[in-house]
């Protein structure tokens, strides 16, 4: 469904040039949820933004259903974008529009008939569970509710491909879980292909079918989620796994009655967590 071949992107700034994407290739099957995981600065956002040309790749090809997106311009590019939904970390909702009007935006742009728009908005409000918030403004919503609006808006044009850039990174763990569940349900019901980028292992484990690990502009590992996490080959994957084990240990600690005591006790010497965090920081820059 999606094929990316030899994608490259270098940012040229007055401070010098930076190779954000170095020869990236991958394939995503129809109906699949494909995750890209990596530390901050690995190039994940740049990669996903190239897929709908918010970022202009320097070279390489991006085929969506056999059509090379990199060759499009003007109206044909805009038409192609209408079939690619995008969900943002910071939601990017329109504050001057109600929830209803935010969801109708892409359909207004596509000049769908008013009745069709109304029908779809009603349905989407149900799908994302915001029927009672139709007339609310984004300022009146919680983070999770805002992202639900973002999801509804991205689905309005019944996209073939859904691009998700850290959709849950600004949300708490419980809300994250419910948003991921929603995305999973949508994927199962509509069969939409999803490319999702994240720096959270849990996100990948919960909903991705396959995963690619990104490190300094390259995909260093790729495969089924189980496979990659069972036999981690790259440094990044290993660090992610260690961090996850550390997190779950922390959770155990905090839930036990002696948790506080132990947490204070850990201050006396460099604990396992601090060493790991130090390592992660050095590595992620």
């Amino acid at each position, binding site marked *: 469904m999606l094929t990316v071949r030899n994608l490259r992107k270098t940012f040229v700034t007055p401070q010098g040039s930076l190779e954000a994407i170095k020869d990236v290739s991958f394939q995503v099957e129809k109906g699949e949820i494909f995750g890209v995981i990596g530390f901050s600065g690995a190039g994940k956002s740049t990669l996903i933004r190239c897929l*709908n040309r*918010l970022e202009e790749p320097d070279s390489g090809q991006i085929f969506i259903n056999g059509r090379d997106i990199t060759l499009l311009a003007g109206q044909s590019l*805009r*038409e*192609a*974008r*209408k079939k*690619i939904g*995008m969900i*943002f970390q*910071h939601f*990017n*909702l*329109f*504050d*001057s*529009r109600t929830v209803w009007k935010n969801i109708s*935006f*892409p359909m*207004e*742009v*596509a000049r769908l008939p008013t009745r069709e728009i109304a029908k779809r908005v009603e349905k989407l409000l149900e799908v994302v569970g915001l029927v009672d918030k139709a007339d609310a*403004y*984004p*300022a*009146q919503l919680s983070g999770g509710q805002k992202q639900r609006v973002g999801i509804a*808006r991205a689905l309005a*044009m019944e996209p073939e491909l859904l691009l998700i850039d850290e959709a849950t990174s600004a949300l708490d763990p419980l809300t994250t879980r419910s948003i991921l569940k929603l995305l999973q349900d949508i994927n199962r019901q509509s069969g939409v292909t999803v490319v999702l980028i994240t720096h959270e292992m849990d996100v990948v484990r919960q909903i991705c079918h396959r995963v690619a690990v990104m490190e300094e502009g390259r995909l260093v590992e790729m495969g089924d989620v189980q496979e990659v996490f069972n036999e981690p080959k790259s440094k990044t994957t290993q660090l992610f796994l260690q961090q996850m084990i550390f997190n779950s240990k922390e959770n155990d600690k905090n839930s036990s009655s002696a948790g506080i005591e132990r947490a204070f006790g850990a201050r006396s010497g460099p604990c396992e967590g601090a060493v790991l965090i130090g390592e992660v920081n050095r590595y992620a820059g």
Partner: protein
Amino acid sequence: MQDDLWLLLLTGTEETLYMVALSTLLAILLGLPLGVTLVVTAPGHVLPVPTVHKFLGALINATRSFPFIILIVILLPLSRLLVGTTLGATAAVIPLAIGSAPFLARIIENCLKEVELGKVEAAIAMGAQPMEIVAKVLIPEATASLIRGLTLAIITITSFTATAGAIGAGGLGSLAIRYGYLRYRDDVMLATILTLIILVQGMQWLGNRVALAVEHRRYRFK
């Protein structure tokens, strides 16, 4: 205090409001397209044309660097051409509008630039055209700050009308000069100044109220 005071004040206020209203309207007609073009033609924006962007920026700066009184004198022939006279409120509207349009354009530019680029990108990602992005994203998202900026511009235009009044435009400014200054009518001088203060306070109050009403913020610091 003499009994012609109220009549003088009434006519003066009327003329001032007329000049302010008409020149604001014309300034918006000139300044809005100018401000919008300035924003969207900037490098990296939705319709990047750097040469147009640079040219408009230079043009605006050039117009803005004229002292207003000089601009009026330069534009007098234009007033005569368009209105048939160089005297009176209507004639003053021409230089007032042309003099404040670049200022308004800059204000509009600033307001539109404040709109988070994430929103613009979201619209681009949905396949919106540049003009749709202006009409459906940039302007609606900037409405509250546009109203605040417009209030600022209207108040500046009000003070411009007082300057224009000094050279025959009519209105409260000319009242203050002709009666308050030249004829030593202290009552007219004082009343004119008070009226201008009340007008400006009223405009600011109204602007704040309208801006607050169109804004959908979470926390409303009044």
